[in-house]
């Protein structure tokens, strides 16, 4: 059965890649697109069945091997960890594929629709193969294909200036990530003499170097701060189904890589501290940046950074605890991280897809121009709310359970006998708590401003509910949000883990029971009279959307309190009638939020490189004489070399 499912999935993916390309040539665009996405669904189903079988039976399964040359071989081995990530990929891709059937039809350029579908399938299958890879070579191979296909997808609306900027950022960062990985892999190879992951041997000094590079490589891809900058650019630029995949799945593949290699390498405590620190920073800064963001997709992108941070916190705790010898707590933390990975994949894809529907309906990504959509798109609103509630870690949804696991691991940190570690953990815990509360605040804003009250623009007023498939896709994930939360304890016990977690099924039942009970009791006890009236408009005859609280207003208190993090920059421009600047003509003053990392880290580095590059360019600007002179000087140096060595 297993032998059959995986190849079936790959074959279906192959069809899904090729069919739309052929279709666009023979003029059967739409049909082939849909056929391809159905193939994707089949493929995801097959992979899902395959992965679930392995997850539940806790076996490992090695797949075919193909070698280009004896040294470069593709070998695949799916163990429980890999299968878990395969499940994640398959579930989210399945939902995204359903969503896409309808969604791609809404994208602008007819000729690009088929390409998007085809590349999306390449993207998915490359992620599947990365996770299934056993040799570092095939890992890298498919990692690159994943990077490339996602890059092309990000560029799908390449005419837009912001897409170009996003493309450049994404391209450079993703390449940087690959190079770090390449360094680490080759470094490991020089020690072990093979690309085989199973052969990684322990040599503390060497593995630390390897780890740092692996961490950087995976960290960039996962979007940890300060390497996060590509995320908030790339996600808004790409189509929403792609953002869902990128944020939901691709950055998880990086998490997979990190965990996979952590488990292979001999860990050291400072790795754990590094991961924890990076995770904490990403989590809190991610959410803080998200608060200020009013572009809905960018907001979600910043939340991805935050959630990656949370996942890394779990991973860091795992390293610290397992090295201190507390296997149970360590495992709780790791399981929390992994579960949060799954959960984040689910609710973030859900959020991205629903936000895609909203953007489609309103034609804007700015939440200040939305509002009142809950009446116009009730289903989408409900789905978004489920996602928002899950990501805000409210019980009994899935996001809560995974954060709870990490919290519980934190709460047991007294077992560590090392005060230094404990102080680090406590600080991290406080920041983590802040993060999750801010996330809730942010999603109150995101949901409240987007969906509630009056529409804030004409487009929002005209918005229509999305087509059925664009509901069904996210709905699957929404259902999973609930199911994974409520059934978490049962799920873990089926998998053979027993964690000291509260029974969410019980809590969920109680919550709904009390809800219904209160509802019924109120019907009986209280007055049933109801009246619809207008909201008081502070004395104005009618209330308009202009009077509503805005998103900026909403986040203002937090922004003011955290103003040391939101650095602002003032720019003023003055024009004068005369040359000496005496008679003032007009001027412009603006205060804008400083993109700290962009302006203090990325741009300076880029500028240095640009300057050096210009210098080098200038050195070569010249005619024959200059270059003959170079050659002359070089040969004179050669003479000296000969003299030196002779």
């Amino acid at each position, binding site marked *: 059965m297993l032998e059959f499912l995986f190849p079936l999935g790959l074959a279906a993916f192959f069809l899904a890649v090729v069919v739309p390309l052929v279709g666009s040539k023979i003029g059967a665009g739409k049909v082939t697109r849909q056929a391809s996405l159905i193939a994707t669904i089949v493929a995801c189903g097959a992979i899902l069945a395959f992965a679930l079988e392995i997850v539940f039976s806790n076996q490992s399964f090695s797949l075919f091997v193909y070698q280009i040359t004896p040294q470069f071989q593709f070998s695949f081995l799916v163990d429980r960890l890999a299968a878990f990530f395969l499940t994640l990929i398959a579930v989210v891709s399945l939902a995204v594929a359903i969503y896409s059937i309808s969604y791609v039809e809404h994208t602008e350029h007819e000729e690009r629709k088929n390409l998007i579908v085809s590349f999306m399938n390449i993207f998915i299958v490359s992620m599947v193969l990365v996770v299934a890879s056993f040799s570092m070579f095939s890992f890298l191979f498919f990692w690159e294909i994943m990077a490339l296909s996602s890059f092309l997808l990000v560029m799908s609306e390449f005419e837009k200036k912001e897409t*170009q900027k996003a493309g450049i950022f994404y391209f*450079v960062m993703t390449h940087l990530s690959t190079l770090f990985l390449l*360094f680490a892999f*080759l470094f490991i190879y020089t020690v072990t003499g093979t690309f085989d992951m199973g052969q990684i041997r322990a040599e503390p000094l060497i593995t630390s170097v390897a780890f740092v590079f692996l961490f950087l490589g995976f960290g960039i891809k996962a979007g940890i701060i300060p390497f996060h900058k590509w995320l908030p650019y790339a996600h808004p630029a790409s189509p929403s189904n792609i953002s869902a995949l990128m944020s939901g799945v691709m950055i998880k593949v990086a998490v997979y890589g990190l965990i996979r290699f952590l488990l292979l390498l001999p860990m050291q405590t400072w790795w754990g501290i590094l991961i924890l620190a990076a995770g904490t920073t990403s989590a809190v800064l991610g959410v803080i940046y998200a608060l200020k963001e009013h572009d809905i997709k960018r907001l979600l992108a910043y939340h991805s950074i935050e959630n990656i941070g949370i996942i890394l916190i779990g991973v860091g705790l795992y390293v610290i605890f397992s090295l201190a010898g507390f296997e149970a707590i360590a495992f709780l933390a790791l399981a929390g991280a992994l579960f949060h990975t799954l959960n984040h994949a689910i609710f973030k894809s859900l959020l991205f897809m629903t936000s895609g529907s909203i953007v489609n309906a309103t034609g804007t990504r700015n939440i200040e121009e939305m509002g009142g959509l809950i009446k116009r798109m009730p289903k989408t609103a409900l789905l978004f709310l489920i996602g928002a509630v899950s990501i805000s870690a409210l019980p009994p949804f899935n996001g809560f359970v995974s954060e709870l696991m990490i919290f519980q691991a934190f709460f047991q940190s007294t077992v560590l006998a090392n005060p230094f570690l404990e102080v680090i953990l406590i600080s991290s815990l406080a920041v983590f708590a802040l993060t999750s509360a801010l996330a809730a605040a942010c999603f109150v804003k995101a949901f409240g401003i987007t969906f509630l009250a009056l529409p804030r623009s004409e487009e929002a007023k005209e918005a229509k509910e999305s087509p059925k498939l664009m509901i069904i896709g996210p709905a699957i994930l929404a259902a999973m949000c609930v199911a994974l939360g409520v059934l978490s304890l049962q799920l873990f016990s089926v998998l053979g883990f027993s964690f000291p977690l509260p029974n969410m099924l019980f809590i969920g039942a109680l919550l709904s029971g009390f809800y219904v009970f209160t509802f019924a009791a109120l019907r009986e006890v209280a007055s049933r009279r109801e009246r619809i009236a207008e909201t008081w408009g502070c004395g104005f005859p009618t209330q308009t959307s202009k009077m509503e609280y805005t998103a900026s207003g909403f986040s203002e208190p937090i922004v003011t309190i955290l103003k040391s993090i939101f650095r602002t920059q003032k720019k003023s421009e003055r024009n004068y009638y005369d040359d000496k600047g005496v008679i003032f003509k007009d001027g412009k003053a603006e205060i804008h939020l400083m993109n700290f990392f962009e302006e203090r880290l990325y741009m300076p580095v880029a500028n240095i490189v640009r300057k050096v590059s210009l210098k080098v360019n200038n050195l070569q600007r010249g005619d024959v004489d200059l*270059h003959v002179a170079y050659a002359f000087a070089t040969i004179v140096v050669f003479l000296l070399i000969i003299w030196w060595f002779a």
Partner: protein
Amino acid sequence: MTLSLNMILAVYALAGVAVLALTVFSKSHRTMNILSIVLPAVYLVLTLFTLTYGAIPTYSLGGNYFLIDHLSLYEIMICSFLFLLAALYSYGYIEGSIEIHEMDRSSLKLFYVAFNLLLMAITYAFFADNLALFWILAELTTAFSAVLIVIMNAPKNIGATLKYVFITSTCMLFSFIGLILIFTLTENNLGSGTLNWSTLMSVASTLSPGIMFAAFIFTFVGFAAKSGIVPFHAWLPSAHSKAPAPVSAILSGCVTSVGIYGIIRVYAIASQTSELPKISWFLIAFGLISMVVAALTMLNQVNLKKLIGYSTVENMGFLLVGLGLGTSLAIFWMLFYTLAHAFTKASLFFSAGILHHQYKSVRMEHIKNVFKFQPFAAWSLILGGVAIIGMPLSAIFLPKIEILLQSAELSPYLLLGLLTVFLFVAAGFGIFLIKLLSRKDEDAPGVKRYEASLGMKIPIVVLLIAVFALGVFFPQQLTDLLNSIVSELGIR
């Protein structure tokens, strides 16, 4: 069945002379073009035939001026294949050039004569056993390719050609000095001097390492200039950007490999001496310098063909690094890299040629709405770019990984340096292509679509298929061929 070397060489020469004669007497562009398609095709077939049925290596009788071994056949195979495609591409391209007055119909004959002569010169250069003979043939390739560059109606082309001629020729003189040194050395040791590579290989280990090192450095100067190694590279980007696209492809794929071939041959001799480590570091240093300079320059390019030209410099540098590493695996993959690079680069230049005819320029500011006007060229550029920066599936990926791996074995810092360069290269290429292909200009009135003929598209498709097929499928024959080259070069 055995083939004597003289016979093989004679067939090559006869085919060349016949085609040349016919070209001189032919009237129409079509005939000349077909003739220059025929010649590389014949050469390709001949090469494959020799490779399959010949007893390799074979030497000529008497003076031992020529040698057929696996390396020369391999290089000729690559070159004749590229010439074949370039000739196929040329018809459409040259017609287009004539249409936009970049070239005169009167120069056609000169173009094709020089084209075929260049192929012959390159072929015989690869066959040359005598290093001095190789040297003069390499000089001839300079001369013929200079004609091919200057043939366009632009003063800039003359400047570029002058740069080419002066830089390479002056540097080649130093190569000659190096050869004199080698000759003296053998004369000193053996009584009578020789420049025959095969003889040199057999006596190399007895030669004085100090002078051999000096000789290597001097010969390196000229051959490095031929292959565009920094700081002798300046001709390469300007010549590549000014030459007609098929010529650029040949320059980048074949003429540069003549230089690299020379370096390989001399390296093979010098590596038998005790100075091998020094030579290795020397090569690695120059490879690295070339890569760094080229990569940094690429970041600020606005000219597509120049960018591709600098990428050639960078790749040549990487080849040197591979050669400098000197292990049999490194050389094996470095040889394969020559092929992969030549194919990829040719496809890039072919695509750039289509854009050139569409926009009459290859500069960024003139190129707009590429996907609208030239979707084919846009995609082939993207795929070529993906291939050249060594993404997986492309044939460059494997050798790149392996050479990097070998460099990691030598020193992790070297690896780090190489990776940094690759980042710059990828960034340079990526950013350029992103900017180039996404430029949009809605109110560009009256731009006519340039219809690239099928003959221009087929070579690109063929090359890209070859590049991406070789990235995942490595034929056993190729492995054997490369292995025998490595063993013939005496690499341990």
